[in-house]
């Protein structure tokens, strides 16, 4: 049974689901359909995190993105135009340039993660993750670095979000 490459098989299934969901999200004309495709992508990403041994990140991915943020998106789409087809905002040739820039950024990221010398995946991250999960359990492996080594950036991000919330409330309260 150990010879059977179950993890690889599952990786192919979820990776193609993620890519397919991403493609479906950009190509659908119906906003609700593209939103559901995006949820599929998030779900598949979470499954890939599980295959990598990062259970906690997978759970947070689904709780925060698929379960909360996308529901709010769905809410907004339904309230604004009830999910009927709409005209694209992308007119002219600008989006081609934007698309190339985005593709270039993604390509650079992939090169940095896999190809470049000293990339993340070549540093034996898998053993590190397994060791810290063994030592501090799935949540502790994230919590200890976050609340000890990176406490200042963490608090700064919190303040950033607070500022955004206050700004949104201010804008919404203004009499138009």
């Amino acid at each position, binding site marked *: 049974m150990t010879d059977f490459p179950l993890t690889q098989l599952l990786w192919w299934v979820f990776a193609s689901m993620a890519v397919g969901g991403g493609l479906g999200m950009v190509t659908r004309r119906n906003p609700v359909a593209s939103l559901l495709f995006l949820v599929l992508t998030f779900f598949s990403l979470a499954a890939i995190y599980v295959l990598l041994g990062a259970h906690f990140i997978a759970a947070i991915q689904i*709780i925060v993105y698929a379960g*909360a943020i996308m529901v709010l998106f769905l809410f907004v789409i339904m309230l604004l135009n009830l999910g009927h087809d709409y005209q694209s905002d992308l007119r002219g040739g600008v989006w081609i340039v934007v698309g190339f820039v985005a593709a270039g950024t993604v390509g650079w990221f992939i090169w940095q993660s896999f190809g470049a010398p000293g990339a993340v995946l070549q540093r034996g991250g898998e053993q590190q993750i397994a060791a810290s999960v063994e030592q501090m359990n799935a*949540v502790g492996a994230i919590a200890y670095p976050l609340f000890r080594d990176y406490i200042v950036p963490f608090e700064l991000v919190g303040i950033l979000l607070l500022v955004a919330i206050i700004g949104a409330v201010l804008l919404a309260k203004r009499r138009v």
Partner: protein
Amino acid sequence: MHDMGALTGAPWLIAMLIKVLVVFFGTMVVVALLTLMERKVSAWMQDRLGPNRVGPGGLLQPAADGLKNILKEETYPAHASKLFFVLAPMLAIGPALITFAVIPFAAPLPTPWGLVDMIVADLPIGILYILAITSLGIYGIVMAGWASNNKYSFLGGLRAAAQMVSYEVSLGLSLIPIFFLAGNVTLTQIVWSQQQELGWWYAFPLGLSFLFFVISAFAETNRLPFDVAEAESELVTGYHTEYSSMKFSMFFIAEYSNMVTASALMATLFLGGWDIPFFTFDNMRVIAPGIVEGAEPAWWKTLLTFGAFGIKTLFFIFLFMWVRWTVPRFRYDQIMHLGWKVLLPSALAYVTFMAAAILTLDTLGVPFDFWYGLILTGVNLVPTVLFLVLIDRDRVIGGTAPAARRSGPLPQGITATRRPNADANVERENQEA
């Protein structure tokens, strides 16, 4: 330490398969019986007989209902997107059926091939898995409301989405004090902490958390008094108005299996899971495949602990029904008020308070045992009583409720209520008679 041998190879695969099938069919059978129990309990509360024609005492009623639902005509609303309309019940029932996987339901069972732990998947993220999967269940309801091309359904779907997102926050916050005490998020560790390490069921040292969790679980499962998404008297039946036959039934199966999972979860988190109180013969946990810490596993212990788990779960299921047939539906603004302005700040304050209390006890060097739990139970009484007094707003405890209702004008928009001088009228009628 007891080395019972680890399951490997084919026996492991067969044991997993049996566990999955038993849990799946067990949940489905319990769900079917719950539809009967719901009607029997409501009949009992309203002094009726309930269904009693099919089978002995109406026991075969669920089978008759299922058969009827399969044979009914399937209808599709006009001008609705059929794909989403069909997809919605599947999105509702899928998450509802897989959440039970991480709940341990009995003590580990020794077999000739090795030790079988009574949990489908002991994930390292435990309870977070349940939170994640249940948050996906919203899509089914929202899609159903949207795809039905019906204003009432749509309103029901929107209400469900807003309500479930709101109460997820307080649900998550009410879990945090548990993690303080258990030190991990896996449900096996939470059970072990309650039966052995602390020796107290968390309902006692974390009473207010328990209250918050029960309220939020009612809202998350869309049960009365939080069933504004269905709300027969306002929205026909909300998001499933347009559904017929088995697709309608699938929403019901989803709701009931969510109820079973929520009840099992409440029993596991706050009433010790499969722990039998006042006895130590069942206190054991699996620390590695096949290796058990604490008491020695035996088949009769598995059976007894499974019974304890069943009784606790059934108690919460009965609580769900009890509340449903007792309390009227909340108004929508009341639900939002309770979620965002009462539960969220209270749960946040409680997390801070319990964190301070636990940190103080740890700093003082109190050993983590019975006395630790007793002190924490006493400390916990302070915020619990404070919360109950504050939320009561001087009504029941202060004893001012009837007087407040009689004096002053009625709130705007409320017509069908007790008239301010109703008692006086009754008295006058009595005198005239």
